[in-house]
């Protein structure tokens, strides 16, 4: 895992929305201002998930002192596997970018998905996530999701 011990040195995550807006992370530490940008590509379509309107909104909450990051995303399509894959990709991106001390929580914005409890539970289970990422095919799909296109 890369990144120093201070959050400012963490690799930025690139997030691209169709309007080229940048998402600012809200955090509870006044002195720390981080910009999280996340770019995620749908493996089956050449456009970003944002441009496809698959993920409507992503809220990122950073608490550097408590070493906690919480990401809330709203899938616009009800398909369960897609929501899990998106959530997994976000989690992987954060795991790779943040210092080891961080606890990462990725979940669906409450009330926005029929299977949100099931998806959230899977994303929160580090043993299942670890086992899933040992599957080379799934890992490949996740990596494709995360590879950035023109920014």
């Amino acid at each position: 895992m890369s990144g120093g011990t201070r959050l400012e040195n963490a690799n930025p995550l690139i997030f691209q929305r169709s309007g080229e807006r940048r998402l600012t992370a809200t955090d509870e530490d006044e002195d720390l201002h981080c910009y999280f940008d996340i770019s995620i590509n749908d493996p089956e379509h050449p456009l970003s998930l944002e441009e496809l309107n698959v993920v409507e909104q992503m809220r990122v909450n950073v608490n550097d002192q408590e070493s906690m990051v919480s990401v809330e995303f709203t899938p616009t399509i009800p398909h369960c596997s897609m929501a899990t894959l998106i959530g997994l990709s976000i989690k992987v991106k954060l795991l790779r970018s943040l210092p080891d001390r961080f606890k990462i929580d990725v979940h669906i914005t409450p009330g926005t998905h029929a299977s949100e409890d099931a998806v959230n539970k899977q994303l929160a289970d580090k043993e299942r996530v670890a086992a899933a990422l040992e599957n080379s095919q799934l890992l490949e799909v996740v990596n494709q999701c995360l590879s950035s296109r023109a920014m």
Partner: protein
Amino acid sequence: MKGALELLQRVSAHPDARCWCVAWSPSGTLLASCGGDCAIKIWGKEGDSWECKCVMADGHQRTVRTVAWSPCGKYLASASFDATTCIWKKTNDDFESLTVLEGHENEVKCVTWAPSGNLLATCSRDKSVWIWEVDEEDEYECVSVVNSHTQDVKHVVWHPTQELLASAGYDNKVCIYKEVDDDWECRATLEGHESTVWSLAFDPEGQRLASCSDDRTVKIWKKSTLGDGESDSSDESWKCVCTLSGFHGRTIYDVAWCRLTGALATACGDDGVRVFKEEDPTVDPEQPVFFMSAHLPKAHGQDVNCVSWNPKEAGLLATCSDNGEFAIWKYNSDS
């Protein structure tokens, strides 16, 4: 009675990978560790420090999730995400692969030996619990496959004195199994946890069972005695007599009940290790009260995955973490 945990040694056992499990040998002189680097390592004390005695790196192709020693100490079982369970035989200081148990459809999460040494149980994400019999010729045979859980089974543990098995799962339930007419069956389902149950531990007498969960609580279950004195009844009835809540900040991954002192230790995703003791147990056995005797908030720099009491030396505790290290601690109940 306030206790304390003193660090004796920290070892970087599985660099750049998670250390998932640590297990003391029955003699208490060796510690086995396993992890995300697909390896099993055996550690022994040389003078004052724990040194690596043996590395088994080729037994599994994927993460090794749990290691367990046979009661006699001559065998080690390892459960892996590669869907197999490997049985290793110890000859002098070396371990050699004796056999590989196959059958589970996907990741094996846990393996455990029965106190008799003749039975082994494994559990998997395929939702099943398998019971294996070992004969005198070191031949292993699966005697039962039980599908009582509706999801991933995380942990299996044998009762310390009876041929009784307990399992914990992603379906938030605990199942108790007994052999009935040559077949293993689920005889009780313990419900109450609000999320995945990660681990289980019987108390030294086998009267109670501790379970720990993603819901951040530890529950103590006690076997109810049937009023009519039915001694041969196959039915098991357990009820929750105590819930320890408000102590843990995140998922509790492991719980261990010390055979020597009765102290209960937990491994938590908030990087902390905690030890609980029971207040005067004679007051009301149906409503035990536990208090937190020791709390080490930053036992490791990352999640603590496993906690294990040394079977021979009272107060000696091993823990391991996502950062690949294990640590040996000395717990003193009065500090």
